[in-house]
């Protein structure tokens, strides 16, 4: 996982399923073409994996791009749920209920 610094200097890990949301309606004029493309894609929350797929950029390249945008406070990152020694049972129950409706 890539460690990226958030706006308040807090560090967040960038996972394939970290959800990214744009904090601005339109990319600022200073945004690079890559940054602008990413900002347009994540008007609604989108995982880093999906961003990598739509942008045709390797996952490893997403770290650099997203660090810039997080530092500039242009996107927000929503941390993933990762495996722990004891996964939260209510989370698993929610997933089971969700799967049941498939």
């Amino acid at each position: 996982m890539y460690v990226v610094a958030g706006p308040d200097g807090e560090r967040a890990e960038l996972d394939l399923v970290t959800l990214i949301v744009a904090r601005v309606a339109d990319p600022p004029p200073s945004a690079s073409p890559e940054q602008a493309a990413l900002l347009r894609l994540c008007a609604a929350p989108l995982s880093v994996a999906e961003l990598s797929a739509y942008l045709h950029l390797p996952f490893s390249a997403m770290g650099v791009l997203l660090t810039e945008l997080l530092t500039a406070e242009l996107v927000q990152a929503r941390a993933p749920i990762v495996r722990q020694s004891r996964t939260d049972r209510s989370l698993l129950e929610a997933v089971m209920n969700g799967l049941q409706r498939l």
Partner: protein
Amino acid sequence: MDFKGSDTIPGPRAEDQLPHTAQSAAKIVIVGGFGVGKTTMVGSVSEITPLTTEETMTQAGIGVDDNFGSASKTATTVAMDFGRISITEQLVLYLFGTPGQQRFWFLWNGLFEGALGAVVLVDTRRLEVSFDVMGRLEERGVPFVVAVNAFPDAPRYAIEELRTALDLTPDIPIMECDARRRASSRDVLMTLMRFLHSLAMTGSRT
């Protein structure tokens, strides 16, 4: 890629957009040998058309030199397909169908470390592949269930025979499935969740 035309990069279709309330996502990995049905399983349960994330690996990491004439380093592109299931307005589940070659699994940082669990797809015509796959999951402490894809020309065994052949401990769920069918793939995921739930109750594994 050329970003000059960035206005035209196609994103998710309107109906494929997650709601703004989507707060966090979890992931599951589907593993198994070549052609065992990983992509099929991702596609059968995903709410979006499966997407592909790529990673590159330089020649040094591949360990095979099939590029004699060239002095420059070549990079191999490895693709991994994935799908998505919205669980609630807040929670999203992603399914990653890993590349058949296990040495490529670790190109994606955090793929296995963070996954809630794994589905091991097994083809009874090539059981030996499964040992390697399961060994790697055990090494990393990734809990898994085993799903036997019933290919028409594959030998059929009773589930308990397969458990013995695969050297699975009694606690690990094993079941038959047809990865092409959504209901069957969904049942496999459900079995994985129940298994994870039972582990969370006992805390017997990390």
